[in-house]
Structures are given as structure tokens and as C-alpha cells.
């Protein structure tokens, strides 16, 4: 449970606002160095894969790769497949939720 929701809201707000707005102020008449952009272009894929890997390979806080005990594994393969084929965030999320509902209903 959260201790101070206002602190959390403001902290999350500032950490989102600064990276969003600062480039627009800094880049009024120039662009970022291409080298910085090239390094930064890897951040989305690496931060998402860090979040995804530490999520789908853990079940109830334990590292677990048995597909019928860790119920997130099979839906995650399906979501990755749909995302690669369709490139539609909403559709892959809906399919993922349906898949996890079936897994929880069938195996939990």
C-alpha cells in the first residue's frame, strides 16, 4: 500500500515531465548530438526488456520457467507474436488479457 499518494503523484509527474519537455526547450534552434541520440535510441528496448524479463520469468516472487506453473509465460509468447505481426498495442493487450484469463481459469 502507498504511504503518501501525493508524493508519489508528484514524483512520477516530475520524472515524466522533465524528459518530455526539456528537449523541446533545449532544441529551439539545434538538434542533440547524433551520438547521444544513438545511445538513447537503445534505452526504450533495454528498459522494456528489463521490465518484461523480470516480470514474466517470475511467479509469486520466485524465478520460475515451468509454463504450467508460471501462468504468464504462454500468454507472453502469444503477445510477443501478435505484437510482431500486428503492431497494434491495444489488440495485443486484449489478446494477452484473454490468454491470462484462460490460463488462470484452467490452471490456477
Amino acid at each position: 500500500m502507498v504511504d503518501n499518494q501525493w508524493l508519489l503523484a508528484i514524483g512520477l509527474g516530475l520524472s515524466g515531465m522533465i524528459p518530455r519537455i526539456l528537449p523541446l526547450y533545449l532544441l529551439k534552434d539545434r538538434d542533440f548530438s547524433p551520438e547521444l541520440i544513438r545511445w538513447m535510441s537503445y534505452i526504450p528496448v533495454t528498459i522494456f526488456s528489463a521490465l518484461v524479463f523480470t516480470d514474466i520469468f517470475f511467479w509469486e516472487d520466485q524465478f520460475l520457467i515451468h509454463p504450467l506453473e508460471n501462468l504468464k509465460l504462454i500468454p507472453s509468447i502469444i503477445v510477443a507474436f501478435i505484437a510482431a505481426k500486428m503492431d497494434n498495442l491495444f489488440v495485443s493487450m486484449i489478446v494477452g488479457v484473454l490468454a491470462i484469463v484462460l490460463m488462470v481459469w484452467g490452471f490456477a
Partner: protein
Amino acid sequence: MERKNLLDSFQKIVFVAMSYIPLGIACGIALERIGMTPGGILTMSLLAFTGAGQFMTSSMIGAGASVISIITLNLFLSLRMSLMTSSLSQYVRGRSKIFLALFGQTTADETYGVNLYQFEHNPEWSANNALYANLIAYLTWVVSTWAGGMIGGAVNIPTTIINYLMTAMFISLMVGNLVSKTFIIAGLTSGILAIILKLIFQNNLALVFAAVIGSFVGYALDNRSKEVVLNG
């Protein structure tokens, strides 16, 4: 004229905004579960406007993570927004500071996609169009999460399923960024390293280290492949 602009923006963003309604409601429900009030959720959505960050907040607070580690992770999650707003900056140059702040604050993965496409393919798409489109999506998100917070405890969806919405979102965003071999290697490096570091340190900040190291690996490979091209 502005009325026409607003209508054009609405047409281009309406499907994004519609998809925000169920997601926003689910996110509001998830945030209510960790003890936030509808007012707190509304404030958070107005300030943060991030589906990824807000879902992450609910699942990490649920797992007992500290506020500092969540804010640090959100900073790194939001670095992708720096890439987005800097790539759009050429189209909004010369606008007032307030315009730029509003435009930056209301940029999200999906609105960026729409705006980039329109700026590149539609000669009539103006900076105002882009801001209107952003604002429509932003307000839809804010209201939907607030509504989710109001509904909150009235629905009884298992937390496993609510949290999996975030997982599915992150998998889709990850896959969407796997645009070449160096990105796949960077992603795998970061993912595997994150698991190892998390098992050792039991701390979510491990994810940030894994992402930074993975990014340097991708960047270095990228440099090497460029050299090979130059020398060969």
C-alpha cells in the same frame, strides 16, 4: 478555422482516445487497489500521463517497492519520450514556452505515432493540430483513470489479471522497438542481466543498471558494424 483544426485532430486521434478508455479504467482500478483515492489518481494522471509508468507504479507498490525506485524507473521509462519530443521539435519550433510545455506533457507513445505520421504525410497538419490531438488523448486518459478509481473496489478482477495488462503493454512496446539485430542483442543483454541482478540484489534499481549496460552494448555493436562497413 480552429474549429476545422480541432475536428481534423479529433478524427485522427479518436481511435487512440477510445483505446485509452478501457486501459485508463483498468489503470485507475489498479491504482485504487494500492490505496490511492480518485483525487490522487486524477492528480497523478494530470502530472504524469503515462500508462506504462502508472501501471508499473501499481504493480511495484503492490510488491513493496520504494517510491524512489519507482521514480527512478519512471525517469528511464520516460527517456523514450525525450527521443519522441526531440524528433518532433522541428515541427513546433518558434512556439511559446507554454505551448511547448503543454505539447511535451501530452505526448505519449500513441499520440507520437499519429503526429509523426501526420507531420510527414499530411502537409496541412499544423503544430496546433498536433497539440489538439495530444490534448484529446490526454484528457481521455485523465478522465478514464479517475473513473477507474471511482469504480475501484466495486469490481473484483484478480490482481494477476490487472497486472498482466501492464506486462502485455511492455511486451508489445519491447517488440515494437526490436528494429534490428543490435537492438535484439541489446534487449537480450539487458533482460538477462536484469534477472541476474534482481536475483542478487533484490532491488528494482537493478533494472536501470541492466538497461544502461544493455544500451552501451547495443551502441558499441552499432559503432563496430559502422566501422566494418567503412573499412570493407
